[in-house]
């Protein structure tokens, strides 16, 4: 038996020192399906990038931290709220979805 209790795990990450993303309509990419996730980006006040993850796969906090550190290194955003609903996506899938979402607000096609 695992000692990790059942249920969702909520993880929060904050990054500062990014470039202001400016105004943009909220963006949603991906679907909450098995091995997949949805990522929503919304403009937010302040100069931080705040990330909230709700995931059904508990106990992977350090891996999420690493994936988010990489994301911030690729896309140092400020004034953005990132919201994620995850159903067991792998780190590579999470990174691709994050890049896809950023491409939607910057107009770059992946």
């Amino acid at each position, binding site marked *: 038996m695992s000692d990790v209790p*059942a*249920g*969702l795990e909520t993880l929060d990450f904050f990054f500062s020192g990014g470039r202001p993303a400016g105004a943009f309509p*909220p963006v*949603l990419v991906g*679907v*909450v*399906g098995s091995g*997949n996730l*949805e990522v*929503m980006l*919304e403009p937010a006040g302040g100069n931080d990038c705040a990330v909230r993850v*709700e*995931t*059904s796969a508990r106990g992977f906090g350090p891996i999420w931290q690493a994936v988010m550190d990489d994301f911030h290194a690729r896309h140092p955003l400020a004034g953005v709220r990132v*919201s994620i*609903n*995850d*159903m067991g996506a792998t780190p590579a899938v999470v990174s691709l979805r994050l890049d896809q979402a950023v491409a939607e607000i910057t107009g770059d096609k992946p």
Partner: protein
Amino acid sequence: MISYAECSARERLALLLDPGSFHEWLPPSERVTSPHLAQLGVPSAFDDGVAIGRATLDGHEVIVAAQEGAFMGGGVGEVHGAKLVGLLQRALRERPAAVLLLAESGGVRLHEANAGLIAVSEVMRALLDVRASGIPVIVLIGGANGCFGGMGIVARCADHIVMSDAGRLAMSGPEVIEASHGVEEFDSRDRALVWRTTGGKHRWLTGDCDALVEDDVADFRAAAVAALDASKPLTLAALEEEHALLTARLHALPSDTAGRDEATLLWSALGIADAQRVPELPVEAVRALRVH
């Protein structure tokens, strides 16, 4: 060609409606999510698996909903159902040219069974109100999850159903039939059998859908445009005609079908020549086979 089956609900909306015309109500940023799933340790979706709003289709105002089959199999939960009901009730007030329902659902979301069951019954009632007011409700079925359970009933309450050959429409899904009646009755892993008994070609030949299209977003769009004036008044005469048709179908099969494929026998009984060739025929050829 873009496969309708492989698109997400939001991709279908973007490709099927006039470009950029979709205006969403209760968008994901409103976070109107399921009150039940988190308690069960299941992640929510920001739109609870259905996107609703208004748009134009070939220049005509329409009200539209698209279910996301990849989230909980398109299952209808409390919020998901309430969004559909609210959309249909708004159609009564705004009187669009049509209501489009891009259905992809296994039926009631079992995680919120009672709320979902009530929601589906409310969707049926609201849909019939819209239909009775003369606004056509057009259901498009072509997602990988098909249209089953309560949503199968909802679809058959509508004025007009468009299906692709990849689409499936039925009440009980294959696994449900196998679980309740045994694998001898129905082998849910026999994909050819599943499509012979629930697939778009079968529904077309039996008259359960009104248009059979290729698995192509452009074909679905064209069929939806063609159906904009497809309002079918729900009258006692029409209902009696439907019951007579179903009774005839029930008795169309020979009494002993042992060892023979019942779908093929039924197609033959409906007057379709070379019925055993139906599964391998292209959509266009099957379209021409229907006996009216």
